């Protein structure tokens, strides 16, 4: 067993840990966020290394991409927000805000040591448990293999995701919608200035947007045979939405009413209706009738992609329209 792959793995693991440590403890917030995005990317590599291509895609698109975007947007809102809301406050208060930010970042030394010790003990326990689990075990892979053809898709992960454990996915979509509702309940969308965006961004977005939409459509289709699927496609679509938003494009006022909400709700609604409709054909809940599995899954995936894209874009914008 050659040493090379082990070495690569070790290097990857160490960079992971180092990036995490730096991200969490760097004094400047912006650098912390950027390091976090880098961590996401390296993690994507690790997933590829572990042959979990699907997860890699999701990790990069969602973990690094969308989360990164959200963090940066939040950071942007934090800095100017400080100046915007309290113009009345004098300058030193702002500096005071920054200084206290640094000084108080760390709890007292003794407490931190104690927590560190506690965590070490906890990790040792976990490590021992993981050590026990090191023995090779097939888990449910061959069971999935055996029932794959009944599931209506060729690729096992999508089969698990949308058929065997479709109930989880339904709820997952609900979580996304819930997060959006939570965000909208907390604040209204910041009023975008209608000054013209720089020409380069406008041109780039006009070029990239259709490409992204195409990639999203392809991802949805390929999900049945290879890594891909609704979530990855959705995140790409979301990214397209973010790009358009940044380049100053806005939905017309009438569209921000119930139509937008319908799109947002579409994914969950379609999945739920199909799940319930099959009961009519005396199938168990979410059990697609034998012939119908493939088209049903496809329909669900399409609807899900659309609503995930819309939700991610809305999440990035922040407040309710």
């Amino acid at each position, binding site marked *: 067993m050659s040493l090379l792959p082990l070495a690569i793995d070790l290097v990857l693991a160490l960079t992971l840990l180092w990036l995490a440590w730096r991200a969490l403890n760097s004094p400047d917030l912006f650098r912390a966020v950027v390091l976090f995005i880098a961590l996401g990317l390296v993690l994507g590599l690790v997933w590829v290394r572990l042959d979990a291509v699907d997860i890699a895609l999701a990790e990069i698109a969602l973990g690094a991409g969308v989360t990164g975007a959200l963090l940066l947007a939040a950071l942007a809102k934090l800095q100017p927000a400080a100046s915007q809301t309290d113009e009345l406050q004098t300058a030193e208060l702002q500096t005071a805000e920054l200084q206290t930010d640094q000084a108080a970042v760390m709890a007292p030394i003794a407490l931190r040591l104690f927590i560190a010790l506690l965590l070490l003990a906890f990790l040792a326990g976990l490590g021992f448990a993981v050590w026990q689990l090191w023995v090779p075990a097939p888990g449910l892979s061959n069971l999935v293999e055996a029932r794959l053809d009944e599931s209506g898709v060729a690729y096992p992960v999508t089969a698990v995701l949308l058929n065997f454990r479709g109930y989880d996915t339904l709820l997952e979509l609900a979580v996304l919608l819930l997060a959006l509702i939570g965000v909208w309940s*907390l604040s209204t969308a910041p009023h975008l200035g209608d000054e013209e965006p720089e020409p380069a961004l406008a041109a780039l977005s006009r070029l990239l947007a259709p490409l992204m939409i195409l990639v999203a459509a392809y991802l949805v289709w390929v999900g049945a045979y290879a890594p891909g699927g609704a979530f990855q496609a959705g995140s790409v679509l979301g990214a397209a939405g973010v790009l358009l938003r940044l380049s100053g494009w806005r939905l017309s006022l009438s569209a921000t009413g119930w139509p937008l909400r319908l799109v947002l709700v579409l994914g969950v609604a379609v999945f739920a209706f199909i799940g319930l409709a099959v009961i009519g054909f005396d199938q168990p809940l979410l059990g697609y009738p034998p012939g119908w599995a493939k088209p049903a899954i496809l329909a669900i995936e399409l609807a899900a992609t659309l609503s995930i894209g819309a939700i991610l874009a809305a999440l990035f914008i922040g407040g309710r329209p």
Partner: protein
Amino acid sequence: MPMLLNGADWATALVFVPLLAALACFLVPRAADWLGVLAALLILLATLGLVQDLLSDGPLRVAVGGWGAPLGIDLWADGLSAALLLMTALVGLGVSVYAPGYFAAHPQQQRWFWPLWLLLWTALNGLYLSADLFNLYVMLEVLGLSAAALTALSGSATGLNAAMRYLLVSLLGSAAYLLGVALLYHGYGTVDIALLGQRIEAGAVATTALLVMAAGLLLKTALLPFHFWLPPAHGSAPAPVSALLSALVIKASFYLLLRLWLDLFSGLGGLLAALLPELLGLLGAAAVLWGSVQALRQRRLKLLIAYSTVAQIGYLFLGFPLAGVQAEEVAWRAVLYLALAHGLAKAAMFLSAGNLLQFAGHDRIADLDRAVQRLPLTLTAFVLGGISIMGLPPSGGFVGKWLLLESAFTQGRWGFAIVVLLGGVLAAGYVFKVVGYAFTPTEIAQEGEAVPLRMQWSALLLAFGAILLGFSAPWLWPLLGVGDPFGLPIAEVGAAR
């Protein structure tokens, strides 16, 4: 009509009705009010259907998608989950009837309350029915997020601060739970509780998983050391929301811990399986005493009720040491009774606190100016709820306290018996402190604004529910026995129905 629908359909309805209602309320906010109430009624009907089905032909196992246990996700409904579902349905109906009245005064909150609350309800019903660990994780996540969002609904500084802390705590809790699920999956190859129950055996993996999951769930159930987030969250949330949080949300994570303990870990044996229940019992006892003393000290009504929740949660954990050794049924049924009674009573108390807040504009206990005479229904609801919290007869709380004492005395655990009694006395202390001030006038008479009858009656009906629970043994007792939830973990595999 019920003849047509069998148990599986009721279970499906229980999860999908609130989900679809949530979507509808999100789509058409103007119609949210009556949609919400309609959904609440349907859910109650579904719960009763399920209960009737369980009573007639035993526990229900539904294979979602028809794939069966190891591969697909199963729904499992037995006495334990049916009882909690019934409580959720009743409290949910009460709060849904109360909410339109309350949010009439806060229109912008009303628009977001309904979708969040119905999603919370979906998560609750899904959690009580699910028999799959990862599915439970997703339910927990939905629950945590919606509860945090609801807490932040009031938009006040303290509300947001509390909601933030609550969100972080619940995220950490579910992350720990997920870690436990990962360990169990890779240790024993399945995430279905029934299968796990058979495959699990004492070892490092099982012990670590138990510890991690227990820590996560204790964090979300706010047992004593981890209770710091509960009082500000429940205290500063809008009244219907704090009622939901106290009565339902913390019960979900407790139910999960109970389910894991009963079906997976109680049979393990070994040092930890003996030590953990004792530890939980001690923490529970400390919670009862510390929570009650804190509640006595409070000067604001909602914080008092929140600390009372911390105390009552302590009662639930007393069940572990008392039932630990011989896995005796009485202690667990006591805990169930206490949980149900607390749910109904605490919801009634928070709703009446909401009424008082809306009436007087403040909830300082000392300045309840002759509230008994000006808000008789609300005070009656508060007192009836208080009676159940104190465990005075004829309430459900009394039956729970009686069974707990019975199991304590049969096993000779004097310490726990004394704690239970002392808890009851302290509870009487703080409930009647409030009632005492409700009788006396303040120096300057305060005029109050009218509180719609709908709000007062919903609080009162919930309180009556807590009292009638005391008389409900003839049909509740057999229900608790369905599927022998408290027996040793030998549930049968995959016999889908």
